[in-house]
């Protein structure tokens, strides 16, 4: 059996510094129509780490991803992404930064007038300096990664929900971004397709070691990610060997009433005495 990925302790510094933190939220608040959604939240996403964000509907999970991308501006607080303060950046500067970030939207958000090839190649074509051969090669690679090569000429309307998510993942990873943001990638999918999507996310995490924020309602998805690794030789996701601890750079963040009530790893989550958290994970 292939060895699990490098232990988290080796990959992450014990004391997070600015360079090691890919995303930093500092006392971020935002309200929509006078209703507070996030109320002074702070957290950090370390390099190579995957952080799963939980909370009930309307708790501001997706808003965190949009704030990270600078698609919405916070009312208060600072957000640093790859060292840049996105709260102070102009829209033009944000377009440059966003090229280093991949995002998988809740409902895939594929461009319905473009084919799968054009959707996946969108960012490469927009950059303008990538040759046609290179675009074709990278599109094929990205689609091969999500096992969707056969759908290259199809349009989004011809794909199932799970296939659309996979194409959305291919579109997000085609430029090998430094950060990936997943907004409920398994929402509305059947358990088998959900597992396929989670396997792809685990594959991306362990093969390319991309830092990522994952918003999900499904706690089991995050636990699978925390307890499995991707075996490159077998080309499949496998459970960690018994007794191994801390090998997976995976953290959990739980939101309640606009505040962060938990930020830690799977072990800490399982040992939490907080009544709300215990009810949430039960």
């Amino acid at each position, binding site marked *: 059996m292939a060895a699990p990925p490098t232990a988290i302790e080796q990959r992450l510094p014990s004391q997070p510094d600015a360079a090691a933190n890919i995303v930093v939220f500092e006392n971020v608040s935002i309200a929509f129509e006078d209703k507070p959604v996030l109320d002074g939240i702070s957290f950090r996403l370390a390099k190579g780490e995957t952080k799963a964000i939980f909370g009930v509907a309307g708790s501001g999970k997706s808003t965190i991803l*949009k704030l990270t*991308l600078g*698609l919405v501006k916070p009312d208060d607080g600072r957000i640093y992404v790859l060292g840049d303060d996105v709260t102070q950046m102009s*829209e*033009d500067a944000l*377009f*440059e930064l*966003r*090229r280093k*970030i991949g*995002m998988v*939207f*809740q*409902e895939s*958000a*594929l*461009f*319905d007038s473009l084919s799968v090839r054009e959707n996946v190649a*969108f*960012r490469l074509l*927009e950059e*303008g300096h990538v040759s046609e051969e290179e675009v074709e090669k990278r599109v094929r690679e990205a689609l091969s990664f999500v096992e969707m090569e056969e759908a290259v000429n199809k349009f989004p309307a011809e794909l199932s929900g799970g296939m659309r998510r996979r194409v959305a993942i291919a*579109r997000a990873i085609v430029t090998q971004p430094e950060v990936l943001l997943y907004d409920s990638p398994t929402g509305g999918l059947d358990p088998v397709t959900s597992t396929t999507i989670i396997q792809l996310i685990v594959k991306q995490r362990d093969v390319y070691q991309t830092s990522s924020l994952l918003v999900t309602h499904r706690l089991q998805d995050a636990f699978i990610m925390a307890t499995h690794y991707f075996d490159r030789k077998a080309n499949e996701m496998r459970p960690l060997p018994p007794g191994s601890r801390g090998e997976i750079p995976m953290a959990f963040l739980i939101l309640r009433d606009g505040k962060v009530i938990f930020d830690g790893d799977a072990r800490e989550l399982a040992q939490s005495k907080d009544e709300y958290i215990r009810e949430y994970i039960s």
Partner: protein
Amino acid sequence: MELISPTEFAKDTVQTVQDYSHLAGQSIANLFRYPRYFADMLQQADLIGVGSLPIVILTGFFTGAVLALNSANTLQRFGSLSLLGQLVSVGMVRELGPVLTGLMVAGRNSSGMASELGSMVVTEQIDAMRALGTDPMKKLVTPRVISTVFMLFFLTIISDLLGLVGGGAVARGLLGMDSHQYWSSAWQILTFQDVFMGLVKPLLFGFVISTVGCYYGISARGGTQGVGRATTQAVVASSVFILLVDFFATKLLMAIFGYR
């Protein structure tokens, strides 16, 4: 129906004017900034220009024809049927050609833009485009504005010509006028000022149609119902704005050219 306070209404109105002005200004400013999407402009020009050709031809032809029919009745009373060509020519070139073409294109394309962009907003495609590092204003709005302004100019010329042909067909076929007389009077009456007025207006109308359509599309909220509402509002607003702009542009141009 929910009542809204006067303060909220005033705030919303100011916000709408501000957002629309920003979009309209950006659509022009983007012409001078990279990247420029020529392929998208050509695609939109085909959709807006070539796609609108059948309705513009029909509208122009029958407007000219019915203008000739109605005017002939009055002109005959004064024994001035020979002026029919002049009347159709001035009426079509200065006013009816630009306005009716503008209204037809507004009905077809302003709604199309609002529904297309609105659907992209509610399915997060606009957010996805921004997330992929592309400015939707440059990629979606500016090509539509440029193409509409450019194509409406030529559609209006076609409409004017077809209006004259329609008037000529009625003059020759139903009123028994000499074709040469009709066409020579129609041609001779036109001055530079008439043609200039008739060709400035489609540029303004094209800008109104595309910016209003894009504005309502980009600001669509509330799922499919919101897209439907945006589409209706786009057609109504762009049609009303065309008539308003027409009045003020006519007044201004008449003042410039010294018409009374």
